[in-house]
């Protein structure tokens, strides 16, 4: 009788708390990370029994890989080239998916300047290039065309775009989903010189973890990636709603601008060629070649160790 009563009352269910995950973002909170925010706010992480915290990048010069290596974060975002360099430095990072399959980097000129091809650039001025980032892409693009990268003079104007709009700076290394939007919003017609049009193919924001996490807890990596890709799928389908999700993490952001950033990010994330996040060996090999040619890799290594398709194949199934 007592047993029956106990059974009727029910024993309290012991539920495991969700796994706590920390993600080191590659920038301050922005709609650039809209898919992650969507996975968080739409409950995709919760469905995978995850509770996720995002760490914004503290500053431009800060390293987004170190917090993942020292355990402050479980996953991180960095450019594909940054991860190749990291790997060459014997840092045990492994890319698990690329979020921006097309790098947003673009060299912007004012349309009225008539500068529309790399061949037009020598003798002009460019905003200071970031080593390992815009500098690598610019050098690779110019070198490939037989042009001297040094023929373009770098000027430090910080993040102020007014010298560019005033014509005091000829070339602005910027992002398709940010600087181009600002320029057009302010009524400027611009020319876009895309490194990928000149044989420089780079992955943009790429999601990575440590070798140790991948080996010791592949289930956690799989669940996190699956929820993240769901978030990105939703964000791509609903950019106007996904952009403003960033305001939860930084209430000072402008909702309309975040929606525009997300809208402009869609063709960088989903290109129609492969599934969201999918990586191709030839792009990793191309990035490696560019960096090796520029002497940015300490020593040659097998670039295929810098990424794994294990989780993407598990999620999407097989080759594409």
């Amino acid at each position, binding site marked *: 009788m007592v047993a029956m009563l106990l059974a009727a009352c029910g024993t309290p269910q012991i539920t495991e708390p969700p796994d706590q995950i920390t993600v080191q973002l590659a920038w301050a909170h922005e709609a650039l990370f809209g898919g992650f925010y969507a996975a968080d706010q739409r409950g995709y992480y919760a469905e995978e029994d995850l509770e996720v915290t995002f760490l914004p990048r503290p500053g431009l010069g800060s390293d987004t890989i170190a917090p993942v290596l020292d355990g402050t974060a479980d996953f991180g975002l960095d450019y594909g080239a940054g991860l190749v360099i990291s790997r060459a430095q014997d840092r045990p990072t492994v890319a698990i998916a690329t979020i921006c399959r097309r790098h947003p980097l673009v060299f912007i000129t004012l349309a009225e300047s008539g500068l529309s091809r790399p061949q037009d650039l020598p003798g002009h001025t460019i905003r200071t290039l970031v080593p390992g980032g815009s500098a690598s892409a610019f050098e690779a693009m110019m070198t490939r065309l037989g042009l001297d990268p040094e023929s373009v003079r770098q000027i430090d104007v910080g993040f102020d775009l007014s010298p560019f709009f005033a014509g005091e700076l000829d070339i602005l290394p910027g992002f398709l989903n940010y600087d181009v939007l600002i320029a057009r919003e302010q009524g400027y017609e611009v020319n876009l010189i895309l490194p990928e049009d000149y044989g420089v193919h780079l992955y943009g924001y790429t999601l990575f973890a440590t070798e140790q996490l991948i080996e010791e807890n592949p289930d956690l990596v799989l669940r996190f990636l699956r929820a993240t890709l769901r978030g990105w799928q939703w964000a791509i389908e609903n950019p106007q709603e996904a952009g403003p999700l960033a305001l939860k993490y930084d209430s000072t952001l402008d909702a309309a601008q975040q929606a525009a950033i997300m809208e402009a990010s869609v063709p960088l994330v989903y290109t129609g*060629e492969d599934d969201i996040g999918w990586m191709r060996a030839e792009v990793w090999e191309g990035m490696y070649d560019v960096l090796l040619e520029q002497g940015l890799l300490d020593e040659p290594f097998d670039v295929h160790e810098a990424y794994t398709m294990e989780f993407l194949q598990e999620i999407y199934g097989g080759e594409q």
Partner: protein
Amino acid sequence: MRLVRNAFTRLSTKLLLLFLLLAIIPPTVVGYLAYDNGRRTIERMTLNHLDSTSRLREAASERWIAGNETVLESLASRRHVAELVAVLASNDQADPEYRAAHDAILQDHLGPALEEEGHFLELAIIRAQDGVIVVSSDESLEGKYRESEPFFVEGKARTYVGKVSYSLSEGGAVMHVSTPIHDERGEVIGVLAGRADPAGLTEIMRAAAGVSASEDAYLVNTSRFFVTEPRFGEGFALKKAIHTKGAEACLEQGDGMGLYDDYRGVPVLGTYRWLPERELCILTELDQAEAFAPIVALRNATFAAGVVVVLCAASWA
């Protein structure tokens, strides 16, 4: 006397009820069976119709693609084109011969083909040795590299039809078709590439809907994204994914038909076909409301007539 009158009243009420039941039940049963049979017939006929139009659209798409291939193959096989491309491949851009060959290709071949055929938004010749666009009907693309693009890599070996994808350089959804250009020794010296407008596929999908107010047809890729614009949506191509039962079943690489909710959440009759050559699904659907409208109208009319009969009988009683 009163007893006789009461007995008569009870009998007449019973008879009335009996007559009412006899008047209502058989027609109701027959009506239901007729309705069910009619609905099934309409369902079968509609699905067969959708399957037929789906096949027609598939054939039209293939003709459109084959037409694009033929235009390119015909251009690439012209001896004069091959001779001019050979000049571009072996001369420096600054040489007068290079400029003359460039202009001749554009004016005598690519330009007229672009105007006459109307299949392509842009035609270009890509140098085989390095993947650089040496001639393009869109001058702003000349000098750009396409060395890793599948339409260049594959196009060196055979006529190739690419996936509908987003091009940052060209600023929108594109579909590339390409074919090799050989010199007189049979060596590949260039790739002729055409940028077809995916809107052409949308037009094909939208055609053949006839007078239907809701017949819809569209293509979906293996990532579950729309490739063409559906009838009830704009800006869906490569931006909206679809998760309907029809799309899911088709992406399992199957053909079939059935009743399910479409991308708007509206109940439809639909057929789906997997196109293995293109790795695409074609879905053709019609709103159930439109398909079943005649039988629903008949059902409603019958029901209304039945109600009138009952009301008349009741008032007479």
